[in-house]
């Protein structure tokens, strides 16, 4: 904590004096369940990308390539919105995602 700026060096009023700073903040620790993307099942309809409230679905050239776990809060909306017949995103208890 001693490396953080003192009260004289901070913007007053708790203002964050620049834009786009939420990208610098990791919310990985908020997650209880982790969305795990299964590329073999994904049809790249991008419903998850549309609905994700934290812009945490990573897309390249129109295809889902992964999940930004620094900004995913584990809300599960992506898994819910993934079409029922596809189910390319599975919510797994954090820490158990490698257990198969």
């Amino acid at each position: 904590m001693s490396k953080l700026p003192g009260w004289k060096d901070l913007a007053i009023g708790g203002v964050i004096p620049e834009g786009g700073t939420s990208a610098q903040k990791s919310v990985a620790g908020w997650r209880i369940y982790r969305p795990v993307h299964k590329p073999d099942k994904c049809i790249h309809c991008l419903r998850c990308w549309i609905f994700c409230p934290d812009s945490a679905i990573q897309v390249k050239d129109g295809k889902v390539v992964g999940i930004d776990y620094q900004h995913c809060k584990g809300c599960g909306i992506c898994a819910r919105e993934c079409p029922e017949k596809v189910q390319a995103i599975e919510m797994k208890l954090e820490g158990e995602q490698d257990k198969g």
Partner: protein
Amino acid sequence: MAKLESLTGNEAAAHALRQARPDVAAAYPITPQTELMHKFAEFVANGEVDTEVILVESEHSAMSACIGASAAGARTVTATSACGLALMWEVVYVAASCRLPIVMPEVNRALSGPINIHCDTSDTMGCRDSGWIQIYAENAQEAYDSILQAFRIAEHPDVLLPVMVPFDGFIISHTNEPVEMLSDEDAASFVGEYRPRRTLLDVDHPMTVGPLDLPEWYFEHKRQQVEAMRCAHAVIREVGEEFGRRFGRRYGFLDTYRTEDAEVVIVALGSTCGTARAAADEARDAGIRAGVVKLRVFRPFPGAELRAALAKARAIGVLDRAISFGLEGGPVFHEVRSHLYGDARPILPFVYGLGGRDINVEQIVGVFRKLQGARGLEHPVEFIGLRE
């Protein structure tokens, strides 16, 4: 040039708001404040001031709207009383901690219950720790002058804190008095333009207002508020002196009356001070060397000025129009005694006038008599005008 008008306190306050030309006003009616914003809305409807008036459904919404408007860079005003202030409680603190220079006349009324619409200071005393500057007015003239000064104080770059100007419900708010108003031009030139350094509407410099402030940051922001209150001390003095130089009515943190040689001195707030001065004259006729200190600024508390004003008193009585249950004496008493720490003089707590009960000259002469005979340091609170 200045002109003399017959105005109620509420009307005088509404004129001060009009002359400060706010960009935004948001308020909700509550007795005894209602007439104030009613009058202000009339000025807006008549085109006498170009203010955006936001209709809201509660005081919580009123202050919330003010916070948004002020963060967007608008000069912003509201007004309330008692239960209205209580309903906006949460956001009263947010306005101060976001450092938004909102100006709010507050018409003092007892905070329920049982429900009562008349004057005491239980409403504003309750939020003395909210981070707002508090300037209490004795009469309609002081309410008018202090509201004009409030904009200068609130918007000063070293301060940037909201300011409330409390004055006594009905006694001041609904009583006609002669008020010397400034011309619109003089008022505008004194108050000046509000030029916020940063605003939410400046899209080239985006910022976030009111983010989550967790343990590693919150304490530092509170310390900044402490500093702003300390800086406000000098600004209140400068603004009060400048007002005096330009318009002939000089303002400080407190006023003294016949304290130079006074043995017994009463400290009070608001409209009661006029009664106390009359009582001091009467007590002097009866051979008691009596004086009065009127506290005008309660936040930031003018400790050094108060100690100087009371330097020669042998005994001090503090009149509180509010009560702290479970504590002997009201908030003004405790703060006065705290600032006289280490003092061996008797300092006596009195509570009076709750729920608008009148206090008269004779009763305050009785306080001076009591002070004259006071010895020692332990004094239970006395209730003036209470039926046993």
